[in-house]
């Protein structure tokens, strides 16, 4: 069975929400006193509100959001402009992985020392590397465009430049 909507019904909804002014609420209370239809409407309002709230809360609670924050942060990191990304990478390397960096530079230097004579006709050329590459220390780190460069120096003063690119 359906009933025509009355002018008062819209205000009843606001009344049930506690959104009428004290004067309006008092007027409405007087107007609906002993009105079984108005009372039933208010009961319906409360029941529907509560059922909706519970239903929506359950939707949220049932959602598996494990890893959600990680996924958001990964997307943020992936969308960072390249220079910022490279800078962060280098900062991280500088802080946490200086020994690995030094080892990588040393390996590179060794490769140069070993490989270069193979392509040279005269093996009596001066050594390219002086000092122990394993002891090379980082002099500076910088970025340019999508590339990063780390400058190492051995104890004997040989400079090694290690360049990376995205």
């Amino acid at each position: 069975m359906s009933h025509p909507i009355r002018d008062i019904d819209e205000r009843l909804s606001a009344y049930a929400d506690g959104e009428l002014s004290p004067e309006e609420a008092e007027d409405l209370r007087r107007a609906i006193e002993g009105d079984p239809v108005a009372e039933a409407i208010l009961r319906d309002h409360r029941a529907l509100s509560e059922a909706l709230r519970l239903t929506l809360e359950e939707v949220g609670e049932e959602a598996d959001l494990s890893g959600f924050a990680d996924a958001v942060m990964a997307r943020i990191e992936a969308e960072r402009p390249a220079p910022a990304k490279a800078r962060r990478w280098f900062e991280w390397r500088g802080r946490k992985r200086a020994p690995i960096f030094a080892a990588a530079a040393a390996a590179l230097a060794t490769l140069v020392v070993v490989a270069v004579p193979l392509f040279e006709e005269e093996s009596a050329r001066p050594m390219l590397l002086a000092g122990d590459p394993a002891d090379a220390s980082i002099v500076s780190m910088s970025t340019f465009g999508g590339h990063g460069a780390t400058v190492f120096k051995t104890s004997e003063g040989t400079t090694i430049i290690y360049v990376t690119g995205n």
Partner: protein
Amino acid sequence: MELDDLSLVRRCQAGDDQAFRALVLRYQRKVFTIAFALVKDREEAMDIAQDAFLRVHQRLHAFKGDSSFYTWLYRITRNLAIDRLRARKGDSQELDEAAGWELERIDPGFVSRRLGTNPQRGVLRKELAEQIARALGELPEKHREILVLRELEGMSYEELAQTLDIPKGTVMSRLFHARAKMQAILREYLGNEPLDLAAGEEG
């Protein structure tokens, strides 16, 4: 001590990613639920929620704190959800407050009889909760949206007016029509069969 939203935002603006992560953790569930209520699809809601946080992060430098962080986040989520809805064929309902509503209400008292006057968690049967979610999904987006904000977020009419950028009088009218329509849809779903609210109760 837990930092408030604005303090976290200021830290994010200074480049602190962990502060942004804290905001994500704080609001991820709400954002997902809002998105889900609007698009009615879990996977799509998850995508929208991620996109919303991403967009917030991209625009964080411009956030001045004139509105609350959550209101801002909500608006972004809502716009993304509405874009998706509009991209879907046949799901782009622009409506008047009373569009499709025949200005009659169902038998007063029907809903409280069927749902109980004070449904409790666990008493609200899964089947019934599904019917309610389905009925909510049948509503036009504007009605669905305002009901979700009111019932889930507990927003006042003033907050609803600000969030939705509509006059307070429209909030009152829209909420009224949303509820009336929701009740009419529930009336169709639930019919007149006796309903044992405790049946199937779990735990």
